[in-house]
C-alpha cells in the first residue's frame, strides 16, 4: 500500500484532521479535510498554484490509496471466504448457517445433498427458497419450523433427530452465532446422517429379539415335549415293574432284561425331568415358592434320599451342621433338588470306603452349604465345563457315572434363581467340595 506520507502536504493535512496515516480516513475525516483544503484555498492566495498542483497530485494519490485499500479489503474478504468455504466443505457433517430472518447465510455441499436441494435451485442461490426447501425435506417440517423459531429467541444449543421424507435419519446439532457484544445473529446447524448406524442398530435389535423369541419357543417346545414324554414312560417303567412283580417265575435272563428296561426307563425319565426343569427356567416359567427353611432339615432330606445309593457304593454320609445356622430363604422342593444333585454327584465320584460330608455355616447374609467328597477330584481343565449341559465328566475308569449330565447345569441355575452362588474347589485324587451360598431368610 502506498503510505499517505508520500505526499507530505496531504500527510500533514490528514494529521491535522486527526486521521491515522496507516488506515483509510473515515468519512468525517474526509469531510474535515475538504473543509480544511477549501479554507486554505481561499486564504492562501499567494501560492494558489502550488496548492492547486498539490491538490491535483494529492487527489491522484488519494485515488491510488483508495484503490489500494479497496483491493486489500477485497483480497482479505476473498481469502476469508475461501477459508470459510474450505472449512465448511471439509466437514463430514452437513452445515447450514441461517440468520434471524431464516435466510441461509452459508451451507456446504454435504448439506445440500442431505436435504436433496435441487441443482436448479442451488444455481439460483435464492437463500430464502433454499431454506424453505431444506425444511420441507424433513418429515415433521411444521414442528421443526416452530422449534427453529423458538430457538432463535433462546440462546442455547439444541440437539435432535430429524427423520427426512426420503427415510434418512439425521442427527442435528444447532448452536447460536453471536457478535462480540452477545447479540445472536444466526444459528449454525450441523447435520450428521445416522441412517446407516440406526439401521444397523435396528437390525441388531431385531436379530436379538428374534433370537430371544426363538430361544423361548425352543424352551416352550422342550417343556411341552418333556411333558408328553412322561406319559408313555409311565407305561414303560410301570409295565416292566409290574412284570417283575409277577408271581410266575421268570428265568434270570428275562428278569435281567426287564430290569434293564425299567432302569433305562427311569434314566430317561430323569433326563426328561431335568430337561423340563431347565427348559422351564430358560422360558422364564419356573417359579419359586420362597419360604424360610431350616437348613439341617433340607440337608437331612437330601441325605436320606441318597442313602440307598451311598450304601450300595460303600460311601458313608456325614452331616455336620450346627444348630445355630440360620434358616435360608428358599423353595423347599428346589433346595432339596440342589442338595440331592450335589450329594448324589459326590457319591457317584467317590470310591468304596470314601466319605461325603455336608456342612452348613453362616457366611455373612448367606448360609454356605458345602458338600465335600474324598473322591477322584476334577482336573483343572474340566472345571470350566462343569456347569454346561450334557458335559458329564467321566470316571477314571472311562465310564460315565449314572445321571443325566444336566444335574450341575440345573443346580447352578436353581441356585442363581435363589440369589445364591455356587463354587467348586477340587484336587485330583484328593476330593472335591461344592459350596452353595443361599440368602438367609
Amino acid at each position, binding site marked *: 500500500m502506498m503510505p499517505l506520507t508520500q505526499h507530505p502536504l496531504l500527510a500533514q493535512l490528514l494529521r491535522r484532521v486527526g486521521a491515522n496515516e496507516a488506515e483509510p480516513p473515515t468519512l468525517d475525516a474526509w469531510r474535515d479535510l475538504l473543509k480544511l483544503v477549501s479554507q486554505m484555498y481561499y486564504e492562501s492566495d499567494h501560492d494558489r498554484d502550488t496548492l492547486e498542483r498539490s491538490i491535483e497530485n494529492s487527489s491522484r494519490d488519494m485515488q491510488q490509496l483508495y484503490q489500494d485499500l479497496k483491493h486489500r479489503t477485497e483480497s482479505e474478504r476473498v481469502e476469508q471466504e475461501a477459508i470459510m468455504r474450505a472449512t465448511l466443505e471439509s466437514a463430514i457433517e452437513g452445515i447450514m448457517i441461517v440468520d434471524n430472518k431464516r435466510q441461509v447465510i452459508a451451507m456446504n455441499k454435504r448439506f445440500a445433498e442431505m436435504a436433496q436441494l435441487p441443482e436448479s435451485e442451488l444455481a439460483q442461490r435464492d437463500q430464502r427458497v433454499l431454506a424453505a426447501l431444506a425444511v420441507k425435506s424433513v418429515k415433521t417440517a411444521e414442528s421443526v419450523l416452530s422449534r427453529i423459531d423458538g430457538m432463535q429467541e433462546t440462546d442455547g444449543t439444541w440437539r435432535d433427530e430429524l427423520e427426512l421424507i426420503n427415510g434418512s435419519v439425521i442427527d442435528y446439532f444447532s448452536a447460536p452465532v453471536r457478535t462480540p457484544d452477545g447479540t445472536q445473529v444466526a444459528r449454525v446447524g450441523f447435520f450428521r446422517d445416522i441412517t446407516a448406524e440406526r439401521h444397523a442398530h435396528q437390525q441388531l435389535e431385531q436379530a436379538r429379539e428374534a433370537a430371544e423369541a426363538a430361544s423361548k419357543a425352543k424352551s416352550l417346545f422342550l417343556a411341552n415335549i418333556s411333558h408328553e414324554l412322561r406319559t408313555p414312560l409311565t*407305561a414303560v417303567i410301570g409295565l416292566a415293574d*409290574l412284570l417283575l412283580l409277577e408271581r410266575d417265575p421268570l428265568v434270570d435272563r428275562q428278569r435281567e432284561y426287564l430290569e434293564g428296561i425299567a432302569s433305562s426307563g427311569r434314566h430317561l425319565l430323569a433326563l426328561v425331568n431335568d430337561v423340563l426343569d431347565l427348559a422351564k427356567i430358560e422360558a422364564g416359567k419356573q*417359579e419359586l415358592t420362597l419360604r424360610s427353611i431350616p437348613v439341617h432339615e433340607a440337608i437331612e432330606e437330601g441325605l436320606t434320599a441318597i442313602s440307598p445309593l451311598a450304601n450300595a457304593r460303600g460311601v458313608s454320609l456325614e452331616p455336620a451342621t450346627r444348630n445355630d445356622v440360620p434358616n435360608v430363604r428358599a423353595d423347599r422342593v428346589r433346595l432339596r433338588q440342589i442338595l440331592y444333585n450335589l450329594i448324589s454327584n459326590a457319591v457317584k465320584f467317590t470310591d468304596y470306603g470314601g466319605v461325603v460330608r455336608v456342612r452348613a455355616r453362616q457366611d455373612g447374609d448367606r448360609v454356605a452349604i458345602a458338600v465335600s467328597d474324598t473322591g477322584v477330584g476334577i482336573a483343572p481343565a474340566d472345571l470350566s465345563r462343569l456347569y454346561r449341559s450334557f458335559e458329564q465328566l467321566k470316571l477314571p475308569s472311562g465310564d460315565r457315572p449314572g445321571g443325566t449330565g444336566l444335574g450341575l447345569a440345573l443346580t447352578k441355575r436353581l441356585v442363581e434363581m435363589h440369589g445364591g452362588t455356587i463354587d467348586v474347589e477340587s484336587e485330583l485324587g484328593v476330593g472335591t467340595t461344592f459350596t452353595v451360598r443361599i440368602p438367609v431368610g
Partner: protein
Amino acid sequence: MARILVVEDDLWSRRLVFELLVLRGHDVLCAAGVSDGRAQLDSVRFDAVLLDINIPGGGGELLLQEIREYNTVIPVIAFTASAMAGDRERFLAEGFTGHLSKPIDVKSFGETVESYLLPPA
C-alpha cells in the same frame, strides 16, 4: 373291594393302572375320554374315579365339575403327568380329592389309591 373308574387316554397307562388295581382285588372299569367316562358314570355306581386331566372331550376338570354337581363326596383323584409346582394345590382347590402324578410307583400305587376310598358305610 371297590368299584373304580379309570379315565385315561393313554392305552398302556390305562392298562397298567387297570392291572394294578385288579391285582388288589378291585372291580375296575375304564374310559378313554370325557364322553366315555360320562356314559360309564351314568350307568354304573362307582366308589372312586381316577381321572387324567389331559383327556379328549373337554379335559378331566370338566368331568370333575359334572360329577361334583350331583356327588360331592365320591373320591375323584387327579392323575396327571404334569408336575408343575402348585399343581397339587390347584387340583385340590378345584374339588379333586387327591393327586397322583405320573410316573407311578408300581409297588405303592394300589395302596395310595385305596387311602382315598371312603370307609364302608
